[in-house]
């Protein structure tokens, strides 16, 4: 890529609009909540949605902006960053909409919930574009701290409390490991800049072991955010324990930011550009290490899902498996691989939030999270059952649903680099995933409920109905026509790789 501008603090502000808008929205939500005494609940949500929507609008022009480094080289401005800003804000809008119809969250402290979420969003947006080691660490914390609050948000609920604590303890350990690793890397390159690290690895012969250890430690910090094996332990407990809209949020936004940060760290900091494409700059074969993590993550996620009876837990493990699939895209060191990850993230967000939304919609009066609670749903509530079936088949990766196209992008990229073994393990994993996704479809359709036994339809709020359609329609549509997403990810894959 061409020479990039390094902008000073004042010039940078112009390109910082999305983050600035989210910050203002965050403050506005707090102020609005205090002024109205927390009574105008939909008003609080409306302020947040307006802020996030504005941030999306502000981020769109950045998709085609010339790459630059903002704030004297702290964060990158490139289409890749713009893509993640749009993605994170758009997904968060959906979550806010969902939370509006969810009594557990709207009953108390909705203002606080939305504020904590916006703070997480801001952290995620910055995490996705940090190119300075200190920035990476700070934004990781900025993303994590409000997440801990969100995880433990249901005050008085022991499961939620446990989730909050667990998330915080694991998070503290992971970020501690990460900063320890970063300090080593600083020692190697003498600079906090990722591009300087790459240059240093190019000229200096760094002993393998001296690089391997910090790389693993730094990766631990990222891996915890995307719940890659073996840093996934917190995921099922946190996903199960916390309020379902928050679970849906966790399964998409911090995860996406984590992927952005991994891509940025390894592709900017540890990859060299050669005429034949990108190669690992370091003495260690980090792509291979990530490939192993990818295989373990998808396999463990899928095998563990087989045994779950709680749908939230099942989706938690399956989201681990999806992280494994996406990691495949990052080991390839190709544009196509990065693009595949972005594409997969988009369809994953649609179908995964969708599946969680069905769980939310079902929990009208009491939590219905066990697979048994879905019994006969397809006959009892045809629309909701159909939507869930669409999401589940899409998650499996069957055509004609979007999840299939996502998998095609990933496996196409993997095959293009001739990583056949990885591709074979990947597709076999999708076969395994069929079994547990179809288990839910089975109880929904194949087990016809006995006459009269709880046949009364559960009332679903209108807001949830609308959002469900908003997620289900593209899940089908992108399986047949996906030019829009292709164009978006084609821009978004342009990652700034250094001066």
């Amino acid at each position, binding site marked *: 890529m061409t020479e990039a501008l390094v902008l000073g603090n004042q010039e940078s502000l112009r390109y910082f609009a999305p983050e600035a808008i989210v910050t203002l929205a965050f403050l506005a939500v707090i102020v609005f909540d205090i002024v109205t005494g927390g009574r105008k609940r939909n008003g609080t949500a409306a302020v947040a949605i307006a802020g996030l929507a504005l941030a999306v609008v502000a981020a769109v022009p950045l998709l085609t902006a010339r790459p630059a480094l903002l704030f004297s080289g702290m964060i990158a401005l490139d289409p890749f960053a713009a893509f993640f800003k749009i993605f994170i804000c758009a997904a968060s809008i959906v979550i806010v909409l969902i939370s509006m119809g969810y009594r557990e969250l709207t009953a108390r402290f909705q203002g606080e919930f939305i504020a904590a979420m916006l703070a997480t969003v801001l952290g995620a947006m910055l995490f996705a574009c940090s190119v300075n080691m200190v920035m990476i660490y700070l934004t990781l914390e900025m993303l994590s701290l409000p997440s801990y609050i969100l995880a433990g948000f249901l005050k008085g609920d022991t499961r939620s409390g446990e989730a909050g604590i667990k998330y915080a303890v694991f998070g503290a350990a992971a970020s501690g490991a990460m900063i320890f690793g970063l300090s080593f890397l600083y020692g190697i390159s003498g600079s906090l800049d990722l591009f300087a690290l790459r240059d240093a690895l190019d000229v200096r012969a760094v002993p393998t072991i001296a690089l391997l250890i910090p790389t693993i430690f730094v990766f631990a910090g990222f891996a915890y955010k995307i719940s890659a094996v073996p840093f996934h332990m917190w995921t099922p407990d946190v996903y199960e324990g916390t309020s379902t809209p928050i679970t849906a949020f966790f399964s998409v936004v911090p995860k996406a930011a984590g992927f952005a940060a991994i891509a940025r760290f390894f592709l900017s900091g540890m990859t060299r550009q050669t005429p034949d494409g990108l190669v690992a700059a370091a003495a260690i074969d980090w792509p291979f290490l990530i490939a192993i993590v990818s295989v373990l993550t998808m396999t463990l996620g899928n095998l563990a899902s087989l045994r779950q009876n709680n749908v939230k837990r099942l989706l938690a493990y399956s989201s681990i498996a999806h992280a494994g699939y996406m990691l495949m895209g990052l080991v390839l060191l190709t544009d196509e691989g990065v693009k595949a990850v972005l594409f997969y993230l988009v369809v994953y967000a649609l179908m995964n939030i969708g599946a969680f939304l069905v769980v939310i919609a079902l929990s009208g009066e009491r939590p219905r999270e066990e697979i048994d609670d879905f019994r006969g749903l397809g*006959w009892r509530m045809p629309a909701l059952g159909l939507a869930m079936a669409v999401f589940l*088949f899409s998650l499996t990766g*069957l*055509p*004609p649903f979007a999840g*299939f196209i996502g998998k*095609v992008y990933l*496996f*196409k990229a993997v*095959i*293009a680099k*001739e990583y*056949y*073994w990885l*591709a*074979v393990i990947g*597709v*076999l994993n*999708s*076969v395994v995933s*069929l*079994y547990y996704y*179809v288990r839910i479809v*089975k109880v929904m*359709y*194949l087990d*016809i409920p006995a006459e009269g036994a709880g046949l009364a339809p559960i009332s679903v709020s209108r807001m949830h109905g609308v959002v469900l359609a908003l997620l289900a329609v593209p899940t089908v549509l992108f399986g047949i*026509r*996906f*030019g829009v997403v*292709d164009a978006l990810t*084609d821009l978004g894959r342009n990652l700034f790789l250094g001066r």
Partner: protein
Amino acid sequence: MFDMLSVITFAPLAGALALLFVPKERRDLIRWVAAAAALVPLVLSVLVFIQFDRAKLGINDPSSFQFVVQKDWIQAFNIQYYMGIDGLSVSMILLTALLSFLCVFASFGIQKGVKGYYAMFLLLETGMMGTFCALDFFLFYVFWEVMLLPMYFLIGIWGGPRKVYAAIKFFLYTLFGSVLMLLVMLAFYFKAGHSFNMLTMMQQGMDGGTIPLFGHVFRYGQLMFVALFIGFAIKVPIFPFHTWLPDAHVEAPTAISVILAGVLLKMGTYGLLRISYPMLPEAARWFSPALAIFALINIVYGALCAMAQKDFKKLIAYSSISHMGFVLLGMASGTEQGLNGAVFQMFNHGTITAMLFLLVGVIYDRAHHRDIDGFGGLMVRMPVYAAFTSLAFFAAIGLPGLSGFISEALVLLGGFRSYQAITIICSSGIVLGAAYMLWTFQRVFLGPLNEKYKDLPEISPREIFTLVPLAAITLVLGVYPVPVLGLFQASMGQLVRVVWG
């Protein structure tokens, strides 16, 4: 020009969508809408059958495909909506259209969730038609997978006591096969220069190159052939991938068994002929001896298993495995007779086995069990039924004068030229077939009438209506096979030239 293939493919889907707007209480209306939706492809495929130019070669020659539609679908991947047919596909389309139409009537007895049943059924028909028409690999794969979902529900919701187990087993097996096909498809996409066009793939030949994997160096073509073969072998099914079939058949409702045996099993051999053979001719030649052995195992093992069955439907299921073995033998032979016999056998097995499953359905609907030894002497009570059954049984045995004889004879003729010993053993399958079929006939229809069934009603006009067309085809083609055999002779000749030079 009127886009015949698209209408054939999507008319059932349109019917399925129309069904969603029919109130679910109006069951008869639902049934007739479904019948109308299945009639459209039948009428059009008869038109195709009439208009089809039998001299055109097809297979790997783009200019000689007929009724071609070619439009861009997804430009980012260079995926096209590319449909067209040659002799190989036209026979399968005809078979699919006919069986689907008859099965709509065979399903009139279904009372539970009629609307959902027919919607799924029509979606399945779209998937089958699309698979046979597609000339773009991606399109082919999408249609191939589209068949899975309705089949899962049709077995799982409307099936017998162990339906849930059978449905998931079918689903997992087939998906396992198709994901391997997905990888091959993506690999070919790069090899063909970023194209999913099947004919481009055939013309470029996908054989060359090597793949280092787990410390070995594999021939590219051979590895890809084996991966595709596993996918297709599960569908056929070829031993040892056959275990899903008896379960699925026993649990599926009658009409779905008919479709499963009549059309879906052909997908496997169709895939081998349409994709594996012309794209990987070198590997296909390399694999032929193994395929002949698989054919042998299928024929003999299937027949022996059939002989051991007590369940009428399971017996037919295993006989399908045996009969599909003949298709494989014909394909392995690499001769024109063999391949013509193989495709003709696909068609004939489709019609004959459909009859057999319909007949089992008739007796099951009346007696509510399928235990072969639980009947006896039914000939007295149901002479018409017995007549149809004997025709179907003799056709399945391969009695001269009925269609099954011609295809099996062609296969054996072709096979004998390449694999004498194997073919001789395979021909024992016909003897075994005669043994289990006649023995079954004897136990069910002859002997003293079982007192329990002295009031069993005779076969109904609706059931006769579903059987007559199939019986007529069996008789006519047995005497004069040219109308169907002539469809694919040119194409098979071309395929032999492509693969065996």
